[in-house]
C-alpha cells in the first residue's frame, strides 16, 4: 500500500505526513478548570514548534511529533490544519487540532509537534493504564 502510494506521489504532487505518538504520563491531578486554562494559554503560543533535541521533547508534554513534507510550491497564505483522531474509536470529531500558518514560507519538510494543550476540550487527557 505504501509502495503504491509512493508511485502515485511520483506522478503527481504530494503531501506526506510522518508522525509518531509519544506516550505520556497521566496529567497532573488538576481539576478540569485548570486543564482548560492550559489549553487557552496554548492558543497564544506558536502553532509550529520544532524541538531541537529528543531530550527536550521527552521532557515536555508532547503527544505527537511529525513532519509535513510537500513537493509543490505553495502560494503565500497556505495553511496546514493537522487533526488527530484515535484509531478505531468514534471521537465525534478530531481530538487534536494544530494549524501551521503560511506553510509555503517554510521549506519542506516542516516539523510539527502536537502537545496536550492542542487537544480538544480537556487538554491532553491521556490515560496510562487501560481498564480491563
Amino acid at each position: 500500500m505504501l509502495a503504491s502510494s509512493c508511485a502515485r506521489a511520483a506522478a503527481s504532487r504530494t503531501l506526506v505526513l510522518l508522525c509518531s505518538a509519544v506516550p505520556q504520563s497521566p496529567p497532573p491531578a488538576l481539576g478540569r478548570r485548570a486543564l482548560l486554562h492550559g489549553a487557552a494559554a496554548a492558543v497564544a503560543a506558536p502553532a509550529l514548534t520544532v524541538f531541537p533535541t529528543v531530550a527536550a521533547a521527552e521532557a515536555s508534554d508532547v503527544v505527537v511529533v511529525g513532519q509535513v513534507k510537500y513537493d509543490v510550491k505553495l502560494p503565500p497564505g497556505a495553511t496546514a490544519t493537522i487533526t488527530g483522531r484515535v484509531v478505531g474509536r468514534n471521537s465525534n470529531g478530531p481530538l487534536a487540532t494544530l494549524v501551521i500558518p503560511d506553510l509555503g514560507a517554510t521549506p519542506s519538510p516542516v516539523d510539527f509537534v502536537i502537545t496536550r494543550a492542542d487537544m480538544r476540550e480537556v487538554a491532553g487527557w491521556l490515560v496510562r493504564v487501560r481498564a480491563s
Partner: protein
Amino acid sequence: MADFVWLDQDLFLKADVVVNGKTVLVGRGKAKAVEGGEGAPLASRHTKPLLEVKP
C-alpha cells in the same frame, strides 16, 4: 467522556492544506504509540508514512 487517549492507542492524523479557502492537498498519517511505555526514547518510535493526493 470522548476526550481521552489511551497511551497504547494509535492516532490517525490528517493534514489539510488550504489556499484561499480551497483544500489543495490532503495528507494522512498514522501515529503509532511508542513501544516501551513511559520513558521510551523517541528514537524507538514507529513512523508509518501514508500518502493521499487530492486532485
